[in-house]
């Protein structure tokens, strides 16, 4: 009878440990998933921020910004933007998967939209679009136009 009592106690202990371990593992898994999701959310917020800041920093890039007698002015040089589009493929580390296009809005223009940068992933789950009006200088006609800079981010 003492033997049976002892055996019963051991079985009880094993069961308790087993259930405790299961609960612990579930708890750890939930916590791990929560932490990973929180890190991903942080990263996503940062990428979002960079994307939104991009729309104000791109017109300031010396690669496309107007320059008169060596002095920079607050406009986009159309010729420079067209020339930059030839070399912009090296800017993946800066622009990532995105599409940056300059549209000439007013007055009407014979120029097609300028595809400043374009890189699309094989599969697009989601895309974000942001745009801003910009002043564009056209050296061919030596005049200014109103343009729209559109930035599309692919996720």
């Amino acid at each position, binding site marked *: 009878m003492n033997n049976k009592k002892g055996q019963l106690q051991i079985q009880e202990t094993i069961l308790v440990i087993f259930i405790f371990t299961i609960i612990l593992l579930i708890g750890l898994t939930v916590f791990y998933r929560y932490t990973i999701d929180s890190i991903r959310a942080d990263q996503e917020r940062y990428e979002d921020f960079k994307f939104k*800041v991009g729309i104000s920093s791109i017109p300031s890039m010396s690669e496309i910004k107007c320059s*008169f007698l*060596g002095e920079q002015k607050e406009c986009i040089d159309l010729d420079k933007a*067209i020339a930059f589009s*030839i070399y912009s493929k090296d800017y993946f580390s*800066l622009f990532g998967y995105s599409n940056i296009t300059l549209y000439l809005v007013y007055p009407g223009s014979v120029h097609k939209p300028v595809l400043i940068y374009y890189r699309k992933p094989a599969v697009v789950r989601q895309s974000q679009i942001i745009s801003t009006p910009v002043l564009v200088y056209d050296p*061919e006609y030596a005049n200014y136009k109103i343009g729209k800079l559109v930035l599309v981010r692919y996720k």
Partner: protein
Amino acid sequence: MLRLDNKKGQGIQFNWIYVVLAGAIILGFFSWFIVRYIDLQNTKLDAKVARNIDSNLLALKSASQFKPVIDLGDSFDFDFFCDSVTVNSKYTQKINDKIIFSSGHITKTRNLYVWTYGLDAGFFVDNLLYIIDPKQKYYLVYDKDKDFVQTLYDRMPNGLYDNVFISDYSGASLSPVGKNKFILFFEPSREQLEILSSKGKVVRIEPKSSGQITFYDLGTASVDSFFGYGLLYGAVFSDSKEQYGCSKKRALDKLNLLSNIYYTKARNLAKISRNPLCDYNTISNLLKSLSESSRNGDISGVTKSIDPLAYENRRLYDLSCEGVF
């Protein structure tokens, strides 16, 4: 009877051993978990700080300015290289689109000074960022070229005058040992070099708008070159030849790209120009030559192109032609 009592006693002993073992394992597991969790949270914080710095640098890059302080809220260790920053030796953030010169390893600081200064090569290239450790002291040491050194000093923002000093050799040699950097604008003697090297890092820069830089490190001298005040200041605030060389290469790559962009623009202007006086061939050739020099790292080639380029561009404007830049 006695045997039965012994077994009972042994049973209790085994019970206690079992409890202690199980308790130790559980305690050990939770301790490990807590340590890993704290580590993870610290890494998250380091990542946040690194991204904060990247964002601040992006904002500061937009114009020539001096930001007295990036206040980080707490003390951190930083390792800046030309294309990245590492926080607390754990998290590395790439700094892709900025050209930075910095103090290298910066320990336990809650503030960083950032100065932005433009790089010019006949046309604007980019804003260079100098990241300065508030604890570092820079001594601009002159011999005969005091005027040149004074001009360099006067161009710096007032906020840096607690960290940057101008003096002759005798004044510099009396500086206390600490986090010092001596920037010499003369050829030092062996003895002068030994005395200053015992107090901090030493760099020699030719007192001209373009020339050679000599980095002295552990008894060896290695040479690099610069053009313009932008790169000269870069040599002042760089931690090492490697860091300076890497940032200089990024500046030259940017110059190469801009030369190509302006070349393309010049060819386009040549095609559409209706004014027979507007000859874009000279400026196109100069831009091509500048692009090649910057691609090859040929500083003397770059320097030779700058003035003729600015002259040609001005000439086009004077002839009522569309300027290239």
